[in-house]
């Protein structure tokens, strides 16, 4: 499974909680994503997904993000994202993920 390494770390900032994603977002990222989400919900406010260190997202990764978004919606929790490349921004628009999460240019505009 070369290139499939994934890591999600939670960082609490002044304005909310950031889940920093590193590596490949695919089905293998599911458990770590869900754990990170759980950890992030301990702090109130918008949860921000930082995609700066993500090199690849595939359809199974989209499903993982949809799963996290579904959990957030059930809890009325806002989710935002930043650090997406132009291509993945387009993918988020095509899949309408962008309709259900705030897409920020970068950390500065998000925070």
């Amino acid at each position, binding site marked *: *499974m070369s290139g499939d390494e994934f890591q999600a770390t939670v960082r609490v900032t002044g304005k909310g909680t950031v889940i920093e994603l590193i590596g490949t977002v695919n089905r293998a990222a599911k458990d770590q994503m869900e754990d990170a989400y759980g950890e992030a919900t301990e702090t109130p406010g918008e949860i921000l997904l930082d995609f700066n260190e993500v090199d690849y997202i*595939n*359809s199974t990764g989209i*499903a993982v993000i949809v799963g996290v978004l579904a959990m957030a919606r059930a809890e009325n929790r806002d989710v935002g994202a930043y650090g997406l*490349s132009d291509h993945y921004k387009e993918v988020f628009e095509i*899949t309408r993920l962008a309709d259900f999460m705030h897409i920020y240019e970068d950390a500065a505009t998000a925070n």
Partner: protein
Amino acid sequence: MALRKRSRESKSSADSHSALEGESKTRALDPIVIPPGDSLETLLLSAGGPVEVSSIDIESETIDRLRDDGVELVVPLIGQGELLGALFLGQRLSDQPYSTDDRRLLGNLASQVAPAMKVAQLVREQQAEAKERERIHQELQVAALIQQTLLPKELPSISGWNVDAFYRPARAVGGDFYDFIELDRDRLGVVIGDVTDKGVPAALVMATCRAMLRAAALRHSAPAAVLADVNDGLVPEIPPAMFVTCLYAIIDTSVGEVVFANAGHNLPYVRTSEGVVELRATGMPLGLMPGMSYDEKIYRLSDGDVMVLTSDGITEAHNPEGEMYGFARLMGRVAGKTKDDDMVNVLVGDLEKWTGADAEQEDDITLVVVRKISSAEESASVFHPEHEKVLAEFSVPSVEGNERLAIEKVSVAVAPVGLERARLERLKTAVGETVMNAIEHGNRNDPDLDVGVQVRADGRRLVVRVTDHGGEHIPDAAPPDIEAKLAGEQTPRGWGLFLIEQMVDEVNRVGENGSHIVELVMNREGDA
């Protein structure tokens, strides 16, 4: 022995035999043939009616025979100035001599029978000719079928090389052939040959020779050994007075090295930046005598060099003045500046100019052109609107994650196309999703099964073809509904096909020989 009363009929050609055998007193003669040049023929042609044998005083073996057979009267059957036959009559049954009335009657009869006989004769000749034409036509069709079935269906597609071929049979179908044998990843065998003779015999020898060459090419790595082997195999099989001229070359496509041997075939020409070079190697044609050995030579093709293999249908074609096209003219045309991929068209066009466009082709015409393209040209050639080019062909084992490998390789392969960045990213995503589907659904994650990927482009389109072993594929699903997914009413999954379709301009899916193929098409307007 001679019957006193008899009536006889015969005619000058021996193919018909009828008799008027009304009574026992009559009998028929064996057919009487008047040999060409017999003075009786001249006499009958000039007689203008029935002739009494007793009045003939010329020297002729036929007359002697007529007398012996008791023939009294000869009634010539003349049509369009030609003696078609004659009625030979013996004594009248009444023992009376033939009267003037009898002769007039017989003369009238002959003048009516002769045209009918002429018509019958013409019809028979035409029927025989039609039958012969049909036989020849069928034979040619069989020969053409044998030949065309065995010629390569497609040209080899090798990165850095352009291979082109032309074959046009003459009406009588000669024994030309060519072949490409992919020996391994870097070595391509190229064959051009010509069987003396035409029609079915030549086609059968061609088929035998081709099969022997293919088998020998796999047994031996040296072209000279291949030809020697085929020669020994062919000698006992080939009909007498037939032989095969043949050139066999192995091209190492990684470095451009050509190793070749020649069994009496036209010499190949190579157009280089410094002029035309003849690739000389000597050897006897195949099938003449056993135990022959063949020269083997090496030539290294540089970027841009064009190797041209021809059959003698080109060099021996005549113009209306009867002059042969010849080697000098061929060499001159090969040397001339041509558009990069156009050598075949240039040579065929020049040949047609030489013979005249309407002239009947004397012999099969075969051309094989192999060009080593430079890397600069290679990247330029993917912009040619019609010439499709394979940019990459590879496979990956069906292991999850290998879609990333495929994405990387496709990215490298499409670099010369210069896709706009956003479109390249879309293509990469589509390739990743398609290969992932092929690994998971087509090959059911079986690491022993490969997913094939081919990338090709012409000036209009870029096509990535992903092939798997055709297991279960997801049927077309409705577009994913994110709201239903977020509400937990649908699985969060199911984005793959949707993404693929959104990322490229066209997706084609086909099942072919137990495989499942997905073609991703990017139209190239506006790229690079």
